[in-house]
């Protein structure tokens, strides 16, 4: 199978405390890989390392089959990242979405068209001219997602992208992302605390705890026969919160 | 209010401080009288203005007509000649106006104007500038054009500019001697009676402001025109330059 992102033995410490030690981590093209686990388990850290936003203390990282290199702009532009807290730029919603396209040298007509399509897909058509940072929490989260999707990445890192959304909006976003993943053959890493979401949307699942990959594999298999008690407890939906 | 009687504010032109004369002279005065002199060295116009406002107790300046008017207007009580030096015209060794060795300043000025040779003027209404203007006034030269450079600065700075521009300049001998080593301009014209530069001392009129150190000012004036001070003035600079920078002439 094709793995646009693959990492071996990634390790990261902060102030001497080891917060991540992932022996293996891979994202398959055309599949959603769910990352689940307790708060502080290292999910965000793993995403950031895999996206090249953080330098590992040790380990190897490959993008599209080659050693990752933050200076390789072409490779970086095939990756997209949606942060846990939306980090919108000052300026309007439109400007936020247009930014990545401007960097890629698109014409203003093409940009307008794409922005309008994306805003419609995330249900924010009327907000195009609003100052992005004055949006509600859930609105901002959707802008952040749209801003990344619009650049057409082949790998997408999503850090709890629906945490602040109501059920209908969650549904819409899930459909948008899984549809994108399928149609574009993109590899998606998706951090979530919602086991139903993980079950609904992911083909692969990674369960992290205390900085380690406790278990990883196809979602349907883990749901049925997870080896670890903690994984089972989480996946069974026994703890629905 | 009033400062303690032990302190005296002397407003003077920069030439007396910059030449080092006051640093040399004042310790003797302090030793005699116990009075500390606070020297504020500024432009001539500014020094007179300080006197009018009562911010100085005594003035030592060189712009005789202005000084006389200052006393006549009641800002000062009296005025005494203290010393003089003289102005000279200096210029580049190449001497494009051909004035070297002339005895007549007016003739020299005329030649400079005729040759349109660079002439650097203080342009600041100082004693030196007024002297220069008085000389120009005697002829009908239009002081305009690139050759006539008005800088609006003190003597030292103006000398620096003239040296850089290799222009002619009217300058007091003390400043010239003090900076001679670092410049290339040479003496062109000297000795004309018109070129005398008289310094006067004026105690500020205590009746116009509270707090003027009248006693200190009087003692300073008396000391400055005393034989002791006059002798000291006459000796100043002889060692370093081989000639005095100022010539005492009090009461003469």
């Amino acid at each position, binding site marked *: 199978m094709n793995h646009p992102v693959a990492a071996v033995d990634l390790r990261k410490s902060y102030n001497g405390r080891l917060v991540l030690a992932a022996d293996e981590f891979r994202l398959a093209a055309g599949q959603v890989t769910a990352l689940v686990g307790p708060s502080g388990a290292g999910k965000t850290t793993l995403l950031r390392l895999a996206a090249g936003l953080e330098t590992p203390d040790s380990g190897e990282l490959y993008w599209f089959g080659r050693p990752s290199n933050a200076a390789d702009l072409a490779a970086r532009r095939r990756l997209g990242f949606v942060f846990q807290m939306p980090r919108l*730029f000052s300026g309007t919603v439109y400007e936020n979405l247009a930014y990545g396209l401007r960097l890629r040298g698109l014409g203003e007509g093409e940009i307008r068209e794409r922005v309008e399509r994306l805003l419609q897909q995330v249900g924010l058509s009327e907000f195009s001219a609003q100052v992005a940072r004055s949006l509600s929490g859930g609105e901002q989260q959707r802008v952040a997602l749209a801003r990344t999707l619009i650049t057409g990445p082949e790998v997408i890192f999503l850090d709890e992208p629906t945490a602040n959304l109501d059920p209908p909006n969650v549904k819409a976003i899930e459909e948008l992302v899984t549809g994108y993943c399928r149609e574009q053959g993109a590899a998606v890493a998706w951090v979530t605390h919602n086991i139903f979401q993980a079950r609904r949307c992911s083909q692969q699942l990674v369960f992290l705890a205390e900085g380690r990959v406790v278990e990883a594999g196809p979602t349907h298999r883990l749901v049925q026969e997870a080896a670890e008690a903690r994984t089972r407890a989480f996946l069974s939906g026994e703890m629905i919160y | 209010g009033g400062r303690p009687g032990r302190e005296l504010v002397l407003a003077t032109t920069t030439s007396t401080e910059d030449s080092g004369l006051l640093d040399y002279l004042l310790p003797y005065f302090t030793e005699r009288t116990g009075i500390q002199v606070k020297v504020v060295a500024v432009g001539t116009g500014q020094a007179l203005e300080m006197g009018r406002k009562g911010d100085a107790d005594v003035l030592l300046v060189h712009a005789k007509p202005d000084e006389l008017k200052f006393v006549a207007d009641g800002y000062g009580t009296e005025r005494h000649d203290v010393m003089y030096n003289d102005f000279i015209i200096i210029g580049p060794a190449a001497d494009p106006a051909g004035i070297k060795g002339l005895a007549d300043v007016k003739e020299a000025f005329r030649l400079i104007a005729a040759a349109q040779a660079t002439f650097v003027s203080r342009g600041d209404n100082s004693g030196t500038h007024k002297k220069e203007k008085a000389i120009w006034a005697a002829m009908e030269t239009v002081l305009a054009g690139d050759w006539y450079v008005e800088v609006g600065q003190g003597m030292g700075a103006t000398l620096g500019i003239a040296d850089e521009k290799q222009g002619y300049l009217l300058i007091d001998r003390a400043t010239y001697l003090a900076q001679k080593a670092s410049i290339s301009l040479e003496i062109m014209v000297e000795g004309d009676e018109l070129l005398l530069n008289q310094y006067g001392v004026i105690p500020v009129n205590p009746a116009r402001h509270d707090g003027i150190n009248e006693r200190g000012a009087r003692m300073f004036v008396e000391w400055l025109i005393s034989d002791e001070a006059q002798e000291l003035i006459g000796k100043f600079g002889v060692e370093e330059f081989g000639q005095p920078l100022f010539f005492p002439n009090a009461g003469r």
Partner: protein
Amino acid sequence: MLQGLREALGMLWGGDAELWGIIARSLLVSLTAVALAAAVGVPLGAAVGLRRFRGRTLLRRVLRTFMGLPPVVVGLIVYLTLSRSGPLGPLDLLFTPTAMIIAQFLLALPIVAALAAGTVEGIDEQVREAALTLGATARQAEYKVLAEARRGLVTAVAAAYGRVAAEVGAVMLVGGNIRGYTRVMTTAIALETRQGQYGLAIGLGLVLIVISFLVNMIVEAGGEAR
């Protein structure tokens, strides 16, 4: 003092050619110097604020210290460099507006750079990362941070402009305060002061302040616009 102000205003209204010439020259010199300082200082400040490199702390401290370069010293150094006997003597730049621009540029540069560095540091690392993930080069991401820090940069430039427009020591030395050629507002004020013309000096000072006010308004408007 009122008298002096009236006199200064009278000269302005009266279309006093010399005064208007001085104003124009002041603006030309200071605006050029600040524009150049911004062109160099903003990227420099951004580098100090955003990049990690050896000597960064030292460089930041030096820039901060150089915010307090004594104008007279800067003036002297430029003077000695441009002087006939100095290394750049042949260029014949001493006592020209160009020399004044150079001196003011040197004074403005550390102010722009140090304040810009402080401002971009205040903008979260988060903006830079967001830009990077959206496909920006390192340079483009820095530019985005600068764009977000726009208002702070305008303040930095305003501070630098304030400094050089008010400065007299350096331009006096390297310009020479030559009437009709290198005389600017501050050297004219100094000249009036030396002559005891306090009223006129203050009047000119007020004119200078009004000019600065207008320049600030325009610069601010430029900062908001983008």
